């Protein structure tokens, strides 16, 4: 239990410093607010509309498909490394796995998930 004491001290110290610094700047700094100062900070560019914007749902569809095939690719690396040891069984297993993903792709395609407009 005592081994974690140092961590606790560190957390407490960090918190204190943060609070002290923010509090100091608030206490010492001058405050004269105007419209320009209160706008959203966008690296100097004039903000044009509200930040709470709705994205087209297609972004999500594409993103999800991307993730699926991304993971597939990641999964292929360890399989490739152990390919010789897994033998024929490994080959068939991976073929089935890819088949299922292909079916999913075909389905998404036919349902129009890949068409942007």
């Amino acid at each position: 239990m005592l081994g974690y004491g140092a961590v606790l001290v560190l957390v407490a110290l960090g918190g204190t410093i943060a609070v002290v610094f923010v509090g100091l700047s608030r206490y010492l700094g001058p405050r004269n607010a105007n419209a320009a100062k209160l706008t959203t900070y966008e690296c100097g560019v004039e903000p044009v509309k509200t930040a709470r914007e709705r994205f087209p749902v297609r972004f999500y569809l594409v993103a999800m498909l991307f993730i699926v095939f991304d993971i597939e690719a990641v999964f292929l690396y360890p399989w490739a490394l152990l390919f010789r040891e897994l033998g024929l069984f490994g080959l068939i297993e991976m073929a089935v796995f890819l088949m299922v993903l292909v079916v999913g792709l075909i389905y998404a395609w036919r349902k129009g998930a890949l068409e942007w407009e």
Partner: protein
Amino acid sequence: MSNLVSFGYIVPELLLGAMAVILFLLSAMRRRNLLRKTIFPGLAILGLMAALSVLVNRTSGGIFGGDPGCISGCSLFFGLLATDPLADFFRILVISATTICVLISIGSPALPKGRTGEYHGLLLVMCLGMCLLSAANHLLMVYVAMETVSLCSYLLTGWDARKCRSREAGMKYVLFGGVASGVMLFGMSLFYGLFGDLSFQGLHLALQGSGALSGAMGQWAATLSVVFMFAGFGYKIAATPFHMWCPDVYEGAPTPFTALLSVGPKAVGMALILRFFYSIFLFPGSMETVIGASGQIPWLLLIGIVSAVTMTLGNLAALVQNNVKRLLAYSSIAHAGYILMGVTAGGQEGFEAVSLYMAVYLIMNMGAFAVVSLVEKASGSEELQVFRGLGKRAPLVALVMTIFLISLAGLPPTAGFIGKLYLFAALLERGGFWFLMLALVGVTNSVVSLYFYARVLKSMYMEKADTDLPTIPIRNPAAVTATALSFATLFLGLFWQPLATAARWSATLFH
């Protein structure tokens, strides 16, 4: 057991998965011919029946004597899955439940016409997930299977996108389910971080204080993670206080799917809880020794308290409902509480009672929802007032509903009575003070529950409809299914021995 050999034991799951893939492919085809209307339910039932027949063929030897091969329990895929009577019993249950769901879905107005293929495909995938969950013997598998079930459930709950309530229910389900999964996953990760193991056996050793991290500290860390995981399991079976999603989701979901949702995930959740607690406490015999070994942590009483609170809250909230679907939702929460009594009782008797009650509950609850679906189809609503005068308008449907309600209330001569009898008997046989108190709470709750079931009866037989309500057509698969289920309810109420034998067999867990 090696992967190649293991595949032999998950043939039902493979069949379900293959049929789901076929269904998705077919639904992606653009040709529309006349066959489409019946081909999807037909194929789904084909897949389910194939899986069921494989299962039954393999287990029938085990239920009624004999012990062929791996039937009495061994682990597959290097311990990810177990194959044992418990898993097989609940697999049969969920496949039957999905079949019933497919049957009562036919012609339901709550399901949009254009996406029948996907609907059935998702049902099969959900069934696959439930099968895996009932056999899961490893936390990773638990998580994967549970998410499979949950994701399909989210989609199917919001299936009727035309209805605001259905969409809302789907969204709420996703959010609450996400939180619950998160909590559970947090528990699992804690566990993995502490012990470097995710198998149930590892948990057992950790709780006994003989794992990687020994002593009181290790026990407490394990306890913490188990409570987090229990929150996830409790969400699946809709036990208080993890049940809050349940009424909204049941009410919003398409009624035929609600029928499955109220039974399937609850069943596999119970199977999971049985296996989980049985594994982490101790294997053979009673649990007494375990409680001593795991540092006097009163797990059973914790479950007992959850059971008492769940059934009380479910029943009391059901008293004031005017929507039959919502009423049945609360009733199903209460039933989760009843079934947890069996888990609390533990031992062979308790587990046997859980299995038995789950089977009985499947029949009567799906039947009740089937009737609600029929009424909804005819009158466009599932409020209590559209049930008025059903006894006159549709005597058969009203009679069938009466049988289900009587059974849900636990009165003889129905299966529900037998189920409750086994649950209470298990508790009483155990016999300690707190177990008797729990039984008392259970009995009191059964009495309270009579009131709201009788309200539906009163509405059907004693009240006159304000307006002209339509009769209920009975020449359709849903009505036939409901009638068959009502026969089963009565039959099992009088002749329950075969089911009791199967339930006893399912409770032979790790002998």
